[in-house]
């Protein structure tokens, strides 16, 4: 089987724009969560989120004219991250041309501003149809989820196939796993793979706040997301994007590329339980991790670190802790299990890709980012969560989990790059 390397990373996140700023923010334990500024959320029950601060959308639109007028923020975040990953991998256009493009996307953008204009019409659908038929189609009401893939594919002339995966919070991890499988079986030469999401809009934030999975600690945003802490009250929505370049290790070495890490395994599973809650025994999560371990041909004892899904919801953290212990056995107690979301918030579809980037950087730099805001240990969460401070890491293998709304689970395994 081919060994698959990560040779390019691009990140746009609440703790920093660009790979280096992102990593500096994570390892410093800096929270990216603050009051919502992207729209007037003052009347919403939840008014905090992990916004990407200082993101220059106009600059992205200038470099990607196809995205001009696009009112779907996650597309712009994706383009920024993909651009950085491609530059980081130092690929020529010819080398990139046959790349498989795999993009994870979350909630489809629906333009409430446009819809509201027709709210008083006796028949909203007909009112909108009259406008659309009149040729006023410069502002799409719904942006199809494959728009990012279309823009990236056209810009870079990618011919290796395009996949848009919309498996909610598992999408970012699933696309990496699917790209890894495709390269390994020889279906693709290389892949540009990543995910993006932004739920920080009225419909996204409002809808999720109704589900009572969000922390409403609006007065202390930096401490609102407390995975594994006994006082945690829910997760915090974030936004972001990350892209990776994957290619066969042999090819990466031959062209002198920087190798951050290898992707070693992938697994996915379904809870088949409920759309909002994880299966209480963690059965689906365990299956996802075990499938990833099997595909990597690794025993549980080979795992040196877990990048947890770690949302900070009361249910997730207990179930994930139990599942990690079930899947890894005694090894679970010997290794750090950390949550990137404690700093970024929950970036939904983007989470898995951003956390995979963090895992690759953990292996490349020898530092595990912390789980911040973890001051009071929940007795049911009894692992080593790398609380509050980053720490040195000498291990070689990281397992990264993503568990989605609706019960979709995905796990990837990354290993430190080596010549052997």
């Amino acid at each position, binding site marked *: 089987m081919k060994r698959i390397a990560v040779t390019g990373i691009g990140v746009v996140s609440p703790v920093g724009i660009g790979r280096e700023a992102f990593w500096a923010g994570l390892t410093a334990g800096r929270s990216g969560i603050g009051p919502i500024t992207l729209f007037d959320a003052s009347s919403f029950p939840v008014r905090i989120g992990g916004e990407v601060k200082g993101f220059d959308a106009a600059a992205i639109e200038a470099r990607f004219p196809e995205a001009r007028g696009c009112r779907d923020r996650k597309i712009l975040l994706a383009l920024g991250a993909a651009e950085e990953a491609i530059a980081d991998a130092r690929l020529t256009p010819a080398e990139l041309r046959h790349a498989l493009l795999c993009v994870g996307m979350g909630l489809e953008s629906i333009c409430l501003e446009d819809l509201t204009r027709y709210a008083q019409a006796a028949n909203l*659908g007909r009112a909108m149809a009259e406008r659309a038929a009149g040729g006023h189609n410069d502002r799409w009401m719904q942006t199809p989820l494959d728009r990012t893939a279309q823009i990236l594919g056209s810009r870079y002339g990618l011919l290796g*196939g395009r996949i848009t995966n919309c498996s909610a919070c598992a999408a970012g991890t699933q696309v990496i796993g699917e790209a890894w499988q495709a390269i390994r079986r020889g279906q693709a030469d290389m892949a540009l793979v990543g995910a993006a999401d932004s739920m920080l809009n009225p419909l996204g934030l409002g809808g999720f706040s109704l589900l009572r999975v969000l922390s409403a600690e609006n007065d202390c945003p930096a401490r609102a997301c407390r995975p594994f802490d006994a006082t945690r009250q829910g997760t915090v929505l974030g936004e972001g994007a990350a892209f990776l370049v994957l290619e066969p290790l042999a090819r990466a070495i031959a062209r002198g590329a920087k190798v951050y890490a290898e992707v070693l395994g992938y697994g996915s599973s379904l809870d088949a339980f409920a759309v909002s809650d994880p299966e209480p025994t963690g059965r689906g999560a365990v299956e996802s991790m075990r499938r990833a371990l099997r595909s990597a041909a690794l025993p549980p004892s080979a795992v040196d670190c877990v990048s947890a899904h770690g949302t900070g919801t009361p249910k997730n953290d207990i179930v994930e802790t139990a599942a990690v212990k079930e899947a890894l056995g005694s090894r679970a107690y010997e290794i750090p299990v950390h949550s990137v979301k404690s700093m970024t918030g929950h970036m939904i579809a983007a989470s898995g890709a951003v956390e995979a980037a963090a895992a690759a950087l953990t292996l490349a730099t020898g530092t595990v980012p912390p789980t911040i805001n973890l001051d009071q240990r929940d007795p049911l969460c009894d692992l080593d969560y790398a609380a509050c401070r980053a720490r040195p890491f000498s291990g070689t293998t990281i397992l990264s989990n993503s568990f989605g709304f609706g019960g979709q689970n995905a796990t990837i395994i990354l290993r430190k790059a080596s010549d052997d």
Partner: protein
Amino acid sequence: MAEVAITGIGLVTPLGCAPGEALDRIQRGEKALRPSPLSPPLACPLFAPVMDFDAARYLGDHKTLRLMNRDAQLATVAARLAMQDAGLRAEEASPIAQATCRGDFEIGDACPRGPLYPPEEMALYGSTGLSGIATEEITRLVRESAAPDGSLDLRRFGETALRRIRPVLSFKILANMPLCFVSIFENLRGPNGVYAPWEGNGAQAVAAGVRAVSEGEVPCAVVGGCDVKTHDLALVALEQLGVLDSWRREVSGTVPGEGAAFLVLEERDQAVQRGARVYATVRRQAWGSAASESDLPLVLRGVRSRLGAPPDALVLAAGDGEPAMRNVECAAMAADGVLVDELEHPSHNAPTLLRPKMHLGNLFAGAAAVQIALAAVLAARQASGTPVVANCHGHGTEQAAFLLEAA
């Protein structure tokens, strides 16, 4: 690599839910196209709804149905029909599956015998289209949020509208929900993925299942897709995206439809061993990615060439009435030796060529699964070894075709 057999088919289409019935009606020339409620002003005069659909008839009147959008209900019913058609159920039924046995079809009724697969060994791959949020739901939300001048008032949204909408709204918008409900109802717990939003992305879901079975990752996969392009907002969205443009220039074009199709795929030997009916085996699939519309002729010819289907294979064409796509598809097949005469009469079903979308409308994300399902039924009526091609071309960049063989 294991041979992959299609052993179960579940359809919910504007021409019925029984696979044989839908194919018969297509072959008889019946069409489910009806006048569109939005024409005028939209130029597209037709749409293809599934009439009198009642999910409770198949799933029982379970409270979970109230959490589900129409696309999720269509998908869940189609998946259940496919499982029953295959005589399969997961080794252990989920609590919700047990609670929903009151429908017209009992779980496992068709063939409760034989080896049943552990839930973790049953994969689920599917596709969904543009958000299925329906007009009535969004209308209420924006009416509550409108300022006197008609603009969106976020203060009203937060203070009034949010308090009056149902908490399940997010579950009706998330694109992965139809597949999640399928997993919950059928207790499928294996590898999975959800793809969006066009015909080729639906084909990717089928391909993922074929790969998972052929490579031995799982012995069984449930694959399919669903879409609802019949409510007002979907019709407007298609108009805005230019999908219906040809109706302005010509007298034909894409007719938006709705429905769902799911297939049960199994390792052929194992399926035969358990006495399952094998509709067809999946011989090959071929892919192409069209970076732009001008690439399409070359891409479709490449797909056709890589598929390696004999010129006399039965074909389910992907053309949906949109003239440009029909012409490109015809040219690709003609270049490969398919009789052009039969291709030049788009409203006519020649003996060796069917055009399901001319009868059912275009189910977009669900279209590939419908094409392959109908191809499998057609194959099952032929002599062993007869090749049947399911073209899965369409909007978006990804173009695919599958070659099936009669069992």
